[in-house]
């Protein structure tokens, strides 16, 4: 693990996309992130406190895309932000545990929170995690698929443990974001058929099409 696309993004970055992970506690959000960003899986991972983020740079159509993925506490106890967390997000991963029915039943609530706080054109993918525990499945694939179609979400079942579909799910999300952004940039055909289309949406992509300095000095954030 750790080779290839992992590690720091020292080169030129064309786009930075902020993506948020949401869902009930213990569905595996942080594990999905660790798998994607560092190809790691921890057997005794701790509850997420507050917010955390990791990045990984991907290449889509010869463009360098930096995925900035934010992870937040699913447990109320450790949550610290709500609306600020969604600020500037262009993509979201809505995660449930396919071995726990209630985590799936809470998805509409998460979706509601997402739609209340995030940009309405945000690209959303629904993830049923822990597909390695097929014998304990409590959410049929069909149920989730049906829900995703109804709500206009992408959908995949993943396993952070054995890495099934993790890469695929992030790639799907990033590509979709890239396509809509790119489409918008070219100001081409109006609405695409994609459910989570960003067409016509004004999004903030700092450094789009231009180089971002490797070290950005950051200072005062208060106003």
């Amino acid at each position, binding site marked *: 693990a750790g080779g290839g696309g992992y590690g720091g993004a020292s080169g030129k970055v064309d786009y930075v996309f902020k993506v948020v992970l949401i869902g009930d506690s213990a569905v595996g959000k942080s594990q999905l992130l660790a798998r994607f960003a560092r190809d790691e899986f921890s057997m005794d991972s*701790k*509850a997420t406190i507050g917010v*955390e983020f990791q990045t990984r740079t991907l290449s889509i159509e010869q463009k360098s895309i930096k995925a900035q993925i934010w992870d937040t506490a699913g447990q109320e*106890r*450790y949550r610290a932000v709500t609306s*600020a967390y969604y600020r500037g997000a262009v993509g979201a991963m809505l995660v449930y545990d396919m071995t726990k029915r209630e985590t799936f039943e809470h998805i509409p609530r998460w979706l509601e929170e997402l739609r209340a706080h995030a940009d309405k054109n945000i690209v959303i993918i629904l993830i049923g995690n822990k597909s390695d525990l097929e014998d304990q499945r409590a959410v049929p694939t069909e149920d989730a698929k049906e829900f995703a179609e109804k709500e206009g979400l992408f959908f995949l079942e993943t396993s952070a443990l054995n890495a099934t579909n993790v890469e695929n799910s992030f790639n799907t999300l990033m590509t979709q974001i890239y396509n809509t952004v790119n489409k918008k940039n070219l100001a081409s055909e109006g609405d695409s058929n994609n459910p989570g289309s960003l067409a016509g949406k004004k999004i903030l992509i700092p450094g789009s099409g231009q180089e971002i300095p*490797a070290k950005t000095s*950051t200072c005062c954030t*208060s106003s």
Partner: protein
Amino acid sequence: MEEEKASAAQSLIDVVNEIAAISDYRITVKKLCYNLARRLKLLVPMFEEIRESNEPISEDTLKTLMNLKEAMCSAKDYLKFCSQGSKIYLVMEREQVTSKLMEVSVKLEQSLSQIPYEELDISDEVREQVELVLSQFRRAKGRVDVSDDELYEDLQSLCNKSSDVDAYQPVLERVAKKLHLMEIPDLAQESVALHEMVASSGGDVGENIEEMAMVLKMIKDFVQTEDDNGEEQKVGVNSRSNGQTSTAASQKIPVIPDDFRCPISLEMMRDPVIVSSGQTYERTCIEKWIEGGHSTCPKTQQALTSTTLTPNYVLRSLIAQWCEANDIEPPKPPSSLRPRKVSSFSSPAEANKIEDLMWRLAYGNPEDQRSAAGEIRLLAKRNADNRVAIAEAGAIPLLVGLLSTPDSRIQEHSVTALLNLSICENNKGAIVSAGAIPGIVQVLKKGSMEARENAAATLFSLSVIDENKVTIGALGAIPPLVVLLNEGTQRGKKDAATALFNLCIYQGNKGKAIRAGVIPTLTRLLTEPGSGMVDEALAILAILSSHPEGKAIIGSSDAVPSLVEFIRTGSPRNRENAAAVLVHLCSGDPQHLVEAQKLGLMGPLIDLAGNGTDRGKRKAAQLLERISRLAEQQKETAVSQPEEEAEPTHPESTTEAADT
């Protein structure tokens, strides 16, 4: 231009106050930040003198003041960051942070040294103070605080490491302790601070922040591992390793998380505060502990370096969120003192702020109360909406309660906050019915000079309403106002005079003022060169002269020569008031009329009857009539009563701009 100057000076004071309100600088930049803030606070007397001065200033000078303000605002922003920003960032980017602070202070020094002090009407003493500040800024320029190198190196060593917590245990422990990142809420707050930096930068923030996020993650893992080992508490741990997840989710009655309980009372906290050891307690519990003479942190046994209690807002909001999610009534403060819900603020942030201020007023230690009262004072000054909202939030009874604290600054802020609130018509009645008058009178008697002045101004503002005139007079406000009129500063005298004037419009208060000895003071102010109080003194004398006792005392005080002089040379208003006093005096004792005639009253009086104000003309005509009657009345003895005094003209009000 003068108004612009006053408002420029005021805005500078406001910025300093905002800076002074920032507290709890991160430990690593504490000294630099405190020094910077302290120096700026020393500039307040200069701004106050500029604001008070009547000298006009040039546009260029005004511009230098605005430059200073700009420099102060950027200082304020950075200081805020040093108080709320990421702790890890402030250490790891210490060079950048220090140089930014230096840059801020160089800018302050430059803009401060460009002010043409000789053109400003400021006292030598204040000038010297500014010189001192300037030289401190210059001296600080080249001097960089030596920060904690061990902490810096520890953090550096954690960068680019895998998240294998075990290998770095001792380093992580040192770092977590030094940065006060030992508790879940602190860690959550730190993560939010980092998130904020990324979010507000709008995108890519560079690898340094990513490294910091990784370091924070390691600290979190370390702290959580410690927690688990310590208490066998496995909340939220992804449970592949131990079978199914805990049953907490399916339980009907949620268990209150330990972190939400006060370590002393074991109850869920309603007002969690952090002590200097980094631990969080329920405010009332830890206050009792400290008041009991303890100086250690009850949980860790560490010595407390200060008794400051910092509200733990993050935890409070976590508790509230948790209560909401679990359908539990959140803990409420005792109902008698509980501030009412805030409604009139447009933004929830402001409403939250007011609510926090109410909490601090009600439950804070003296330091909290002082700063909260100070902030309310400023907010109430700012605009009418704030005055309504603050009153609605229930501030008035709390402020009234604070009038009797021994702390003179709290008194001062509270009385001034009440003054500013009283500008709103609806608040005037509320303040009086909250029982404020005895407290205000107490401050008027015993407070600091500024507090006394503002107490007098408050009484003036409240006495605009007629029933309040009666209440204020009955509760003993008049004698201390007379004392202030006698011995106060110029400003105090003005405030006392305007208050007395208003109060004495009510007949029942006239005797009180006269018996408190106001008349000798007023006649002294009439004749004292440069007292600057002639207008007020004459206006008050004019209303007191209608009272029999007042008339007698004025008559015996040899005031006639100066009255005649005012009718001759005074301003239109002074001429009419002086004539009004004479009308009353002469109605009792024609001897005064004879004396006045000898002093050359006739010419000026005829002029007043022809060219004065309406009231002046009327008074002059009455006097002339009296004189002619007196002339042909050598044998007769009929004395007519003068027409009853019409409402006298008010002296200039000084209240609206009374606050600092």
